[in-house]
């Protein structure tokens, strides 16, 4: 456990000691703030008096989710790719530390950074609540959904980062499929009719939808946890591959 904590702390130190995380945070909060402003204006103009969860927060959380798709690859791209490039992975893998602890520490630190970014958006509900109080529980569900969504994206990013020693490639290969999936969910007409039910069932974005209106469905929670676990498992298999590849 001490080894895990040591690596977790070192990862957090690396994040917060790097200018990248501040640039990502600035861009994330700028875009999220822009969406908050424009969605609020839209709600005040066209939907005032209607359900605020469905007509304002849902729209905002879907927009924040899109910003996360851009932010998370920038945070995950260095996780293992950098260790590979520097050659520090070999030493790390020969310390009294399980591969699982390495993966958990890196993913955990990344999620702490994402949670910190999301914490910055808590200012929006606080502002709105002061003007017009509303039920907070659905909002908590939406934030849980964002964290679970971020868990899948980050674990996928970690997996991609384990495949290469190029941070740029890792970031690109993480962002691209997420964007393509987002485009597909946005324009279902682009999918073949036969494939549509399957695409919907496995869509990262469809499973987020109930959270964004304040509904926690255990099937959606299970989906996100399962998908995160799947990418963690795949990352562990990549690390294990050193056994037969004989290289970092």
């Amino acid at each position, binding site marked *: 456990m001490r080894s895990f904590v040591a690596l977790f702390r070192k990862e957090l130190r690396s994040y917060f000691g790097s200018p990248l995380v501040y640039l990502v945070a600035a861009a994330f909060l700028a875009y999220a703030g822009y969406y908050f402003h424009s969605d609020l204006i839209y709600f005040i103009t066209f939907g005032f008096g209607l359900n605020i969860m469905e007509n304002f927060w849902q729209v905002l959380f879907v927009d924040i989710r899109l910003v996360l798709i851009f932010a998370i690859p920038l945070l995950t791209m260095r996780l293992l790719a950098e260790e590979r490039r520097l050659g520090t992975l*070999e030493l790390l893998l020969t310390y009294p*530390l399980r591969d699982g602890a390495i993966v958990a520490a890196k993913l955990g630190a990344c999620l702490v950074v994402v949670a910190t970014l999301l914490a910055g958006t808590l200012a929006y509900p606080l502002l709105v609540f002061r003007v017009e109080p509303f039920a907070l529980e659905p909002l908590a569900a939406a934030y849980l959904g964002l964290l679970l969504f971020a868990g899948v994206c980050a674990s996928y990013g970690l997996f991609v980062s384990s495949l290469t020693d190029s941070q740029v490639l890792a970031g690109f290969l993480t962002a691209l499929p997420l964007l393509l999936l987002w485009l597909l969910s946005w324009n279902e007409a682009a999918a073949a009719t036969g494939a549509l039910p399957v695409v919907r069932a496995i869509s990262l974005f469809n499973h987020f939808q109930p959270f964004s209106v304040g509904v926690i469905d255990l099937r959606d929670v299970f989906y996100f946890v399962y998908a995160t676990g799947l990418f963690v498992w795949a990352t562990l298999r990549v690390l294990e591959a050193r056994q037969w590849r004989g290289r970092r």
Partner: protein
Amino acid sequence: MIRCEQLTKYFGSVRAVTDVSFGVGEGEVAALLGPNGAGKSTVMRLLTGYVSPTSGRALVGGVDVAEQPVTARRQIGYLPEQVSLYPELTVRRYLAFVGEVKGLPGRLRRDAVAQVIECCGLGEVADRHNGKLSKGYRQRVGLAQALLGDPAVLVLDEPTVGLDPVQAVEMRALLRTLAGRTVLLSTHNLAEASALCSRVIILSHGGVVAEDTAERLGRRLEGAGRLVARIDGPPDAVAQALAALPGVVGVERGAADGQSGVSFVVLASDPEPVQRRLAAAIVAGGWTLLEVRAKPPTLEDLFVRLVGSGT
């Protein structure tokens, strides 16, 4: 303390080591000696659990590394061939991180870090970032992280490789201070192996070709050795004639030294009769033998003998 039992490792269809068996006792300093590609680093990686054997077992302190890697790694301090450090951390902070990963609690960790900083001569760079260290200091930091936690076994992969002669001498002096610990170091520097190690394990093409103390290996060289000859004659024709002599293992042409004639180093399985044949061959060729003398056998002669032209 270290035991390799018929270790074999394939990477896909490539055979890296075959049937490697040897042991290193407690407090013994042993060298894995071999040319590049002999399988030294693979054996070291098998011992640290970085890779698992295809067959056979690697045991450290009686613990099977493949079965209980974390328990085994607690007993090992490892210095990889290429020492890679986190550039954004200072030496002190990096060592504190390694100490924590190795499970050292607070006060003990601070003391251990201070101790290895002193022992490895890192005092003046302790607060410098790893990314700004010279190769020599990086190697020292690599050794310091291996020493943290006072592991029972040290596995050092080519600890002096890539260092300039002064840095290499300093590193060897540092390694001498490790006497009393169980150390397995790999090298292709024969002088280093015989100077630092009581036991030498020679690897070639992934297999052990000899294993003994440096002294006993030296005794196995009786009768073997080198002849240094200075000959006035066409160098290529002379070299060809020397190589064709019975009992000659190899011929190397010496560097030009401004003196008359060309010097040759002749590796011979039994120098005395070769010396006579050499003199006769020079006369028969119509050339002039300016000098011939025997050099005492070295471990290198044995190395050449055992691993052949693969070096």
